């Protein structure tokens, strides 16, 4: 159980980068960008192809990020200069990327099992530090000694990477250009009247969003040991689910809090899938139904709790009001004074 949850965390923290990208396009830019299904694979394809051809895995991952940025910018260009509807421009780019990804890889699947990747590098470097034995001895003392993870390195390093990206995103959205992107999502006409160029903000926003998605894809390919042309199918759904679950559970008071919520949502989504896989008494085919059910519950329960609170509050007010009205006139003044203390 522990290992499974650990694995869900490890994957979730990498998918979180993709979810942050989705948050940027869907929430900040208010642009329903379906490019994600394609650009995720583009990242994986570029990184895997470079690695197999002997490139340093870290440089390959950065190149993947740049490729994703280019794909996102193209979607933006289709929308702004081509005047194509937002949803459709994303879909067109997603379709085009399928063939482009096949071209990049030269085949449908690039195995990385026997290659040196960023993940194997991290693991080897981490093994030299000797932190694993410390963590694992802690686990053994709390009685989880029989299911130790293979390495803590990837989780720790990915936590650092994802949070660095989160803080950079937070900071970026506070800069002048970042504010212009946020304003574009809120009200295009208003920001245009302030002589900002919304074409530039849309293209840049989508570029950055898809750069994150491709970066995440590159890391997932290295963690999973292969890049496959089909690995992006349904990615946008995972991204959206992560964003919405995170927002519902952790709140959206500030940008910094929302990005944290999105990361949390991505991890929770992976944990939900892991749990759904472990429910024994159902058919294997029920997995997606269980996943959906758990997510629905996670989203609906807080709402129900809120509305019952609201009902109670209303009922209490109602009762107060009735009690107040049924008082004899001379007592109303006193009660009023109790309810509304004079300034």
């Amino acid at each position, binding site marked *: 159980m522990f290992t499974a949850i650990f*694995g869900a965390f490890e994957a979730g923290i990498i998918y979180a980068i993709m979810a942050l990208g989705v948050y940027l396009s869907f929430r900040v830019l208010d642009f329903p960008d379906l490019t994600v299904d394609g650009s995720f694979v583009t990242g994986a394809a570029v990184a895997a192809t470079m690695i197999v051809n002997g490139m340093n895995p870290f440089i390959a991952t950065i190149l993947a990020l740049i490729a994703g940025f280019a794909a996102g910018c193209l979607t933006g260009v289709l929308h702004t200069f081509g005047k194509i509807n937002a949803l459709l421009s994303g879909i067109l780019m997603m379709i085009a990327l399928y063939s482009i990804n096949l071209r990049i890889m030269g085949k449908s*699947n690039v195995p990385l099992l026997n290659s040196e990747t960023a993940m194997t590098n991290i693991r080897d470097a981490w093994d030299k530090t000797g932190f694993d034995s410390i963590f694992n001895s802690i686990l053994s003392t709390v009685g989880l000694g029989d299911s130790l993870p293979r390495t803590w390195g990837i989780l720790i390093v990915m936590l650092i990477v994802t949070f660095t990206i989160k803080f950079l995103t937070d900071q970026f959205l506070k800069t002048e250009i970042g504010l212009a992107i946020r304003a574009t999502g809120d009200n295009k006409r208003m920001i245009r009247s302030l002589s900002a160029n919304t074409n530039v903000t849309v293209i840049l926003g989508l570029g950055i969003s898809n750069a994150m998605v491709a970066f995440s894809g590159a890391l997932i390919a290295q963690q999973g040991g292969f890049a496959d042309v089909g690995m992006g199918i349904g990615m946008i759904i995972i991204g959206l689910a992560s964003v919405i679950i995170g927002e519902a559970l952790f709140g959206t008071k500030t940008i910094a809090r929302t990005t944290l919520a999105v990361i949390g949502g991505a991890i929770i989504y992976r944990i939900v899938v892991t749990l759904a896989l472990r429910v024994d008494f159902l058919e294997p*085919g029920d997995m997606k139904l269980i996943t959906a059910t758990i997510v629905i519950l996670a989203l609906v329960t807080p709402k129900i709790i809120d509305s019952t609170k609201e009902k109670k509050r209303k009922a209490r007010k109602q009762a107060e009001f009735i009690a107040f009205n049924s008082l004899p006139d001379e007592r109303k003044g006193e009660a009023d004074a109790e309810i509304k203390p004079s300034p």
Partner: protein
Amino acid sequence: MKMNLKSISFAFVAGLLLLSGCGKETVKNSGSGEGAKEKYTIGITQFVAHPSLDAATEGFKKALEDEGFKDGENVEFDFQNAQADMNNTQTIANNFVGDKVDLIFANATPSAVSALNATKDIPILFTSVTDPVGAGLVDAFDKPGDNITGTTDNHPEGTAKTINFIIEEAGAKTIGIIYNAGEQNSEVQVEEVKKLAEAKGAKIVEASVSTSAEVKQATESLVGRVDAIYVPTDNTVVSALESVIFVANSKKLPLFVGELDSMKRGAVAASGFSYYDLGYQTGKMAAEILKGNKKPSEIPVELPSSLTLMINKKAAEEQGLEVKQEWEKIAEFFDGE
């Protein structure tokens, strides 16, 4: 009321956790796989629900049963299906590693790759993998990894047998191929078909799809341009094979496929082996490992042990191909079950 709702939702999650923790306990033994344990746990990770893959899983279980590993008595199967989603194969593999299963049976390439990525010590037996070397699972057939071996579903003579039959016996000059360019298995086969056809002086027309929804259109695009259609063991096309059969029947185009299960659905002929037998073969290998007789590295990757060309008379009639009696010598006839 508020407390109730909160506690209900907590109880639900707690219940799930409990359920998922239930029935996963394996009896630990202090040996290193040597000697008999009271109960073995075998994790089965299958990529997608698909008649061939399902048959392989059934065969695998049966072989173990014949070797004395009875389901529910001394062995427990944890069957997981990734629903054709590559992101799930890794999660499933991690679950198995966490549960410390005694052996992993990986059915189809993506599941096998993820299993090997998750563990380097739990024995993994794969099946339904077309190109184990190309997928990076093993270095060579006779040199599998420390903890991985299995069976491939690509018989070296299988495709040749069918393609030669299409050209020589069915008299086709141009053959249309429908496949998903996104499937590694199919790419390998398409390359092979091209070579075979060229050697015999026939032409190949390709139609590629990316989802099962595009299969019917791709088939229709071949009508009038080809004399026969060949569908390799492509998961995407095979899952929408009925739409190919529909077009083939209405346009009188003989359809040939890459494996027997698809042939039974309504194609003229296929050479192959039953996936049930392939799974059975893999199960025998698994039994050797569980008994501690051999390590995975000592068992070479095996090819399907039987190969026959089967002709579906009814489909041939539907698709306008005259069945000749002398074909009995080179093939078996399938009359429907």
